């Protein structure tokens, strides 16, 4: 009998499971400088693997393009960076109709700069294959906007599967810290490393790396007893940050039931955010909370009316243009081919005018 070969080897992807995991688009809108573009790339790396890493935005792409595509790809969150003379804004919104939180990025540090600060930067490995754990600090309290922020941050990342998750999948941590005095949110991104505790430096070197150079020593005891019994950082480790591994972990020698100290090494971009406003819709809609401006009911009504009027006006103009274009096309088709060229340019010019109007509204840059 010939060797049996497996016939049905394609692993069927569980559609429902995919849909439950929150995915995000991180994009920049308008003209942003080079460093902000770098920041966008860094934030994309942070949100890996549930984000579009190589997403390319063209100049003409508008918000609704992304929203339309997002439905098919089951993308749930949209993060938009934009730059105005007043400052840098970050909008985090839930597709398709969810609330939008607008933050001002007071200051930021790129991942490359953060790594440049370290004496021994870790190069990224397989950490980006799994999603990070998210930690929120100081987001308690009854204030509605704080609760909403906390919910939003928690739901941007996939939940921890308690039954099936492996310890080795927890490689990164994203921290949001709410500073209660300045009410700024600090965004930090760390890699989790485990270090052996409770042994002297010499023994640690033997355990973790390959056998060191023992040419100068007569006896192994000379090597072991030559130096510091505990490094400075070991002293910090003892106590709260020491854990017993419940499963095997990444790295040489990290096996179950061994004591290790957890150390977080900063890796990614840093951001200082402050909440500006919360809107009902996706980058549009009623403003439910504004940290700077408080509008009275009359003002809100007036603003709403103004907006409605301008929308109606725009709609009317668009309808008129389309009518003109259709009429012109019909006329040209009747007259012949050689006049098509002349006539062709006119409707195009009119179309361009119309598109410029749309640009204003598209990726909303009307900030205070």
């Amino acid at each position, binding site marked *: 009998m010939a060797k049996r070969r497996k016939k049905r080897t394609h692993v069927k992807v569980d559609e429902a499971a995919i849909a439950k995991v929150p995915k995000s688009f991180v994009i920049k809108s308008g003209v942003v400088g080079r460093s902000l573009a770098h920041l966008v790339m860094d934030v994309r790396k942070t949100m890996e693997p549930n984000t579009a890493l190589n997403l390319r935005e063209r100049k003409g792409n508008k918000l609704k393009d992304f929203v339309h595509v997002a439905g098919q790809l089951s993308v749930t969150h949209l993060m938009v960076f934009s730059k105005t003379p007043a400052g840098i804004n970050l909008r985090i919104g839930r597709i398709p109709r969810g609330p939008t939180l607008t933050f001002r990025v007071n200051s930021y540090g790129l991942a490359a700069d953060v790594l440049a600060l370290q004496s021994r930067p870790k190069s990224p490995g397989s950490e980006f294959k799994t999603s990070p754990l998210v930690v929120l600090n100081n987001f308690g309290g009854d204030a509605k906007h704080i609760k909403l922020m906390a919910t939003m941050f928690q739901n941007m990342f996939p939940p921890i599967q308690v*039954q099936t998750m492996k310890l080795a999948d927890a490689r990164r941590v994203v921290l949001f810290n709410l500073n*209660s005095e300045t009410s700024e949110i600090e965004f930090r991104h760390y890699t989790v490393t485990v270090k052996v505790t409770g042994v002297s430096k010499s023994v640690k070197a033997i355990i973790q790396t390959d056998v060191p150079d023992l040419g100068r020593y007569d006896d192994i005891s000379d090597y072991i007893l030559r130096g510091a019994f505990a490094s400075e950082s070991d002293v910090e480790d003892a106590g709260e940050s020491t854990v017993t591994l419940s499963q095997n972990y990444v790295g040489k020698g990290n096996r179950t039931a061994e004591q290790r100290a957890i150390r977080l090494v900063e890796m990614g971009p840093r951001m200082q955010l402050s909440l500006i406003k919360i809107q009902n819709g996706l980058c549009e809609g009623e403003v439910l909370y504004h940290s700077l401006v408080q509008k009275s009911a009359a003002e809100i009504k007036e603003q709403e009316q103004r907006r409605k009027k301008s929308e109606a006006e725009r709609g009317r103009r668009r309808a008129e243009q389309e009518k003109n274009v259709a009429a012109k096309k019909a006329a040209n088709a009747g007259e012949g081919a050689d006049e098509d060229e002349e006539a062709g340019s006119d409707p195009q010019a009119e179309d361009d005018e119309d598109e410029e109007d749309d640009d204003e509204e598209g990726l909303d840059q009307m900030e205070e």
Partner: protein
Amino acid sequence: MAAEGQQPPLPCSLDALQDRLAEHRKCFDSLVELIPAKYYFAKDPDADLSGKQLHNKKNKAPKQVVKDATKKAKKHKLDPQSSQSVLDIQSDNLKAAQNNGSTPKKPAVNGTQPNGTTLEALPTGSIVELQAKLKNRIDELRAKRKAPSQEVVADQPRSRQDILQSRADRKRERKEGIKAKKEKRRKLDDTTGMATTSKSAKESSTPTKTVPTVTEDVSFGKLDFGVTEPTKKRKGPTDIAGQLKQAEAKKQKLEKLKETDKEKAESIQESATWNKLLKQAEGEKVKDDVKLLKKSLRRKEQTKQKSASAWADRQASSTKEKEDRLKKREENIKARVEARNAPKGKGQKKKRPGFEGGAGKKKPGKA
């Protein structure tokens, strides 16, 4: 002669009495001698109480003394002169008693007993004392481990009422305890932004800088336990029409409330919007907007209509096709029948290619 010799003298003769007594006595003595002296004589109760049964640490002799005593005892045991059998001890005591008349001789070694013949009035004081001490110690220990005291035995047959009462009391206490805990937890959560526990940060390496206090109020991301809760009862209708009705009803209610109590209506509306936002942030779809619901309802109706009309078209076309085919078939049959029945001399029959000749014409060259 043999019969006479064999028969022993009668047991009740008087002259052999002395001999018989001596004989009996010798028998008993030999047995008694086998018993070691320390088991034969009554034990001194005082000596025993001090050692084994009670863990009386105070009266324990220091180690060295104990060691010496044991050594001495061992030596004495192996000393051939010291081992006196029961009979010897008894005879000694008898002699001493006859000489002194008062105190019987006590052997010098511990463990052997005062004589059994003249009983001394035992020191009742010490035993009673010890028993009282024992009772006190037992009570102490019982109190420590909260064992039910002896008096409870009296009211063991408690009435049903009492049992039920005690049960109700315990339940009430438990509930109050849980409530108190809840209150405490709620109170802690109410401290918005206040430092409930402040810890100094780890940056102690730069003592010149002021150490920033870090308030710890850590919460983590979502946990998915993989266990779907038993599906909660879905509140409200799930179809679009029902949801639309519900949304409209809610709107109406709110409008009505606005006329009577404006503030309450506002607060309700605000909390409703915030709840909606929170739910949306978590990913649940809240179907609340009347306009959107109407739109989706309309869309659904339109698709239904379209598909209904498409179905009608399909049906109509299929029946039409069937009819057409049937008609065509009948026509063909009719034409064939007509052609067959038509008179022969109608016209020249068209010659088929390859059959130009007539029927039955023979080819030249064939016989």
